[in-house]
């Protein structure tokens, strides 16, 4: 049926609500229509972001459909023309009364010790709509008080009212149905299967949506009462999705993060990392005062002035011998201040906020951008040319999953391995490292090559059909494999651009505000606003660098060769976080001065000569630029500990020590200058940023012509070599997870994943570890036969406890071939 066949698509559905004539939207549920007209119908199970189930009956209202009034659940009933709804009738009231009385029969009256007390829908509804007194005098049902159902979530089954929100969320939204209704009738309870905990990356959402205090977040348990909390709207800086959040504090401590229902971004959902990583601010290991190494000794606390003086001395030399790594942790303002300090004052262009784990800056900055809502628009085709979004951008994963499951979006995977979305994908093209460019090129009609021929023919056909131009196409673009040059990704981007004119991209990078960093010029060859360095005119800056700098790889190599004297680490920890561990070590040990701006003494900061203590998330005001180019506020709720300062202030201090006025001493001055320098920020109304719903999407349209290479021929594998795929897990040994007590233990042990066919061909036997050999460098690793691994590849994740895969990685290699043999055996 087309839209014009049905008069309801163009006009509203007229009905009567409590005697007033109003209109509903087509297919709108009565409960939503009433909400829009200011009539609140009480509810427990209905949640606007999930399918209604009519579980709790709290929303019963009197509806007259022409045959006299009768009770109907408002959450299950799309409004039909001319119904008469009475939400205040005697029948409605007695239904509400009855439902609540029954719910309270088994609900314990332990509100004074319940986390939910004070913000509990059951409390609120009982007060507004319920009976004043209970007639129930019998014994209530009892269960063991909270049982842990995951490392992060406790479940108090006595309090559960069986609304099906948590279980529905787990199944429908997260796709992790690890909790379920167990039993029947009065004995029904929510629970997990024995020894299969609710270890979903999204478990914390169930705590937020539980309408009673049955699900409890362990990090928040007994920490605060809702009426004590102060709240500010902010943005999660855990990954580039920039999920919108509410940050809450009590007595100058961050206490809780809640998801904010933003239509454009995260729909109220968060990953557990978004939700619980705030604990990092409370870590005992925080650096709270400047640290200085005085002549080869240990790092000792110092005054700010001494620390900045030492740092300034090291920065005064030849700018071409100074480099900056990191900056993705910083907010936009911090990034601008540091870009100005290092590029406009010191004059170096050796700056990179990515650690060889992202995309080339021109690609991340210059490709036409899509928004999340455009990617997820019903009926579109999405090409995943990047990592598993569940592991690296989990909130984006929820949006993608919903788009595929509910809105008819078709997914084409162009990935080195199956992802968490593979089961839902319309075409799965899993490409051995080095071949993705060729496979993408062969999606064009009439093109074929060896790599594409190796793909299943039906999958190629399906993908070609989806890209035939009849449906809008967007690309979720990221770095899927750290052991493979981004060049092949670039090839695939070029192929897709040629095949689908007007295709747009969502740069799905992982590190916090890295796209802000790129936009602010924390990358070689660029200045704030995505302006190319060469020939740029920046009047507010003393000058601009007169040479094109090196990226992280170049900086590392130059430093290891003694060509760099001073490295500034802006929250970066290359010792642990740079893919080539040996090179990072060589580089950091060789430089004469290492300056770390960090909140922790990371492995890298431990090598530093100066540590300047930085404020973290929730401790300084600023803004965040997400992967869409959406600028949203990231606000302070507490004060930084000790003498730690916001990153932009650190830059100002350092400039002062250099005897230079950076040009701003307040955030407002900084922002005014930023807007005048970076044209993409020209129209930003900084004062309204905090009140704008989801933040404005900046006009990041570049006039550049980007030419990406023609599918380079992948290097041929040698003898029985496997090609390495290295990516990230959400829980790893990164600082954020390690310093948040409740997240620290979640990283799974490192494991080498091999296809069973390769296991057999290699003669590995169960129980014996494998020896991985890359050009003589060896690593012993436990392994697992995993049918999801693409044959002739080997997969492992970086930064997990057990072994360090980085000893196998050398930057600059196009792909990484490894040999594998059984430990103890011969070649």
């Amino acid at each position, binding site marked *: 049926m087309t839209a014009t066949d049905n008069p309801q*698509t163009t006009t509203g559905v007229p009905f009567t609500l409590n005697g007033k004539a109003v209109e509903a939207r087509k297919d709108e549920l009565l409960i939503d229509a009433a909400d829009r007209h200011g009539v609140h119908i009480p509810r427990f199970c209905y949640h606007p972001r999930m399918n209604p189930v009519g579980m709790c009956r709290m929303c019963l209202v009197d509806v007259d459909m022409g045959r006299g009034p009768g009770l109907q659940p408002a959450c299950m009933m799309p409004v039909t023309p001319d119904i008469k709804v009475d939400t205040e009738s005697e029948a409605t009231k007695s239904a509400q009364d009855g439902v609540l009385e029954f719910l309270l029969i088994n609900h314990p009256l332990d509100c004074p010790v319940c986390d939910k007390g004070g913000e509990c829908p059951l409390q609120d509804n009982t007060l507004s709509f319920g009976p004043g007194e209970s007639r129930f005098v019998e014994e209530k049902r009892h269960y063991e008080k909270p049982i842990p159902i995951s490392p992060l979530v406790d479940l108090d089954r006595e309090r559960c009212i069986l609304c099906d929100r948590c279980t529905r969320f787990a199944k429908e939204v997260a796709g992790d149905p690890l909790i379920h209704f167990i039993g029947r009738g009065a004995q029904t309870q929510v629970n997990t*299967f024995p020894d299969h905990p609710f270890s979903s990356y999204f478990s914390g959402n169930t705590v937020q949506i539980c309408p009673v205090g049955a699900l409890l977040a362990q990090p928040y348990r007994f920490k605060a009462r809702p009426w004590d909390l102060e709240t500010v709207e902010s943005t999660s800086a855990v990954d580039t999705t920039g999920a919108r959040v509410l940050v809450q504090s009590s007595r100058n401590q961050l206490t809780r993060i809640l998801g904010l229902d933003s239509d454009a971004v995260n729909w109220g959902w968060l990953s557990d990392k978004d939700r619980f990583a705030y604990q990092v601010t409370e870590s005992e290991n925080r650096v709270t005062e400047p640290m200085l190494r005085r002549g080869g000794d240990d790092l000792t606390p110092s005054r700010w002035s001494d620390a900045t003086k030492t740092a300034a001395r090291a920065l005064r030399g030849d700018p071409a011998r100074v480099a900056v790594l990191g900056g993705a942790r910083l907010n936009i303002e911090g990034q601008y201040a540091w870009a100005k300090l290092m590029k406009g004052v010191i004059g170096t262009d050796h700056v990179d906020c990515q650690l060889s784990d992202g995309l080339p800056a021109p690609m991340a900055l210059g490709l036409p951008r899509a928004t999340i809502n455009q990617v997820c628009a019903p009926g579109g085709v999405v090409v995943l040319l990047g990592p598993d979004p569940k592991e690296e951008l989990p909130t984006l994963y929820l949006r993608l999953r919903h788009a595929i499951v509910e809105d008819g979006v078709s997914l084409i995977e162009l990935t080195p391995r199956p992802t968490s979305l593979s089961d839902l994908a319309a075409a799965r093209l899993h490409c051995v490292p080095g071949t993705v460019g060729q496979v993408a090129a062969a999606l064009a009609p009439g093109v074929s090559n060896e790599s594409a021929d190796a793909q299943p023919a039906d999958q190629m056909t399906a993908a070609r059909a989806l890209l035939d131009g009849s449906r809008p196409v967007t690309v979720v673009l990221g770095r899927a494999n750290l052991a493979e040059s981004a060049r092949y990704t670039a090839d695939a981007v070029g192929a897709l651009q040629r095949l689908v004119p007007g295709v747009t991209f969502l740069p799905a990078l992982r590190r916090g505000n890295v796209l802000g960093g790129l936009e602010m010029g924390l990358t070689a060859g660029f200045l704030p606003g995505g302006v190319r360095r060469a020939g740029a005119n920046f009047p507010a800056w003393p000058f601009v660098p007169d040479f094109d700098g090196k990226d992280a790889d170049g900086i590392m190599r130059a430093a290891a060769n003694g060509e760099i004297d001073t490295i500034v680490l802006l929250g970066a920890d290359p010792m642990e976080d740079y893919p080539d561990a040996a090179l990072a070590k060589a580089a950091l040990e060789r430089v004469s001065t290492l300056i770390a701006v960090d909140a922790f003494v990371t492995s890298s900061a431990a090598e530093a000569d100066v540590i300047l203590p930085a404020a973290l998330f929730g401790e300084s005001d600023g803004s965040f630029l997400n992967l869409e180019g959406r600028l949203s506020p990231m606000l302070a709720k507490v004060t930084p500990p000790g003498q730690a300062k916001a990153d932009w202030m650190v830059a100002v201090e350092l400039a002062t020590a250099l005897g230079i006025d950076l040009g701003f001493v307040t955030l407002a001055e900084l922002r005014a200058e930023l807007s005048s320098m970076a044209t993409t920020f020209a129209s930003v109304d900084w004062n309204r940023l905090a009140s704008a719903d989801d933040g404005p999407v900046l006009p990041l349209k570049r006039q550049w012509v980007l030419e990406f290479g023609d599918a380079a021929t992948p290097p041929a594998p040698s003898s029985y070599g496997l090609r390495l795929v290295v990516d990230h897990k959400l829980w790893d040994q990164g600082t954020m997870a390690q310093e948040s007590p409740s997240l620290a233990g979640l990283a799974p042990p490192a494991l080498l994943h091999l296809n069973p066919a390769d296991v057999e061909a290699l003669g590995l036997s169960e129980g014996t570890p494998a020896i991985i050999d890359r050009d003589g460098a060896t690593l012993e690793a436990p392994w697992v036969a995993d049918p999801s691994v693409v044959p002739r590849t080997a997969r492992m994740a970086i930064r997990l406890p057990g072994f360090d895969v980085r000893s196998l990685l050398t930057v600059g290699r196009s792909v990484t071939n490894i040999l594998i043999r059984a430990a103890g055996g011969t070649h």
Partner: protein
Amino acid sequence: MSRLTPENELLASEIISRYPRPKSALIPLLHLAQEQDGYVADDAMEHLAELVGITPAEVLGTCSFYEMFKREPVGRYLLNICTNIACQLTGGEELLHEAEKVLGVRPGGTTADGMITLEDVECIAACTEGPCLQVNYRYEYRVDPAGLRKLVDDLRSGARTDIPHHGTLQRVRQHIPADRLGGIEAPEVAGTPAWFTARQAPPSEQKAGS
């Protein structure tokens, strides 16, 4: 106890093949597991989850909904004595007490020799024949204490060959020859069945956009 044996796993895949979606086969598979072990073991539920592609929690959700799937080991014979109103009036509770004495267990318990599990149940729909009971869901009518003692003796001595072990659903298993396996297409593949389209809803009742 255990996952499905190789023979039962084979049987399971045949059962699964009869359904349009693997998870639709869950209840017959739970019966299969119960038949194998006398109850549905946790390991068996995990195995079924793998076989039909859902999580163990989902299997448990279905399994625990049904009283007749036992998730703890029960005896070879499950003795259900009705204590609902009609049987109560005709001596059901006395019968239960007698059983407790004879077996030495309370309802829910299993005799030390692992032979008999005693349960009291609500009406089993044989009210005219009370007091009545079931052994592995096979009825015994108008049972008096002496009859109960004889029944227990017979069960223990193996005299009641007519009653299979607990969990046995059927002694003759239906096998559908491959060429007669039909109609297993999922509705979304098979399209709307003819009987469904025959009556077109009037436009006013049709959901817009569908």
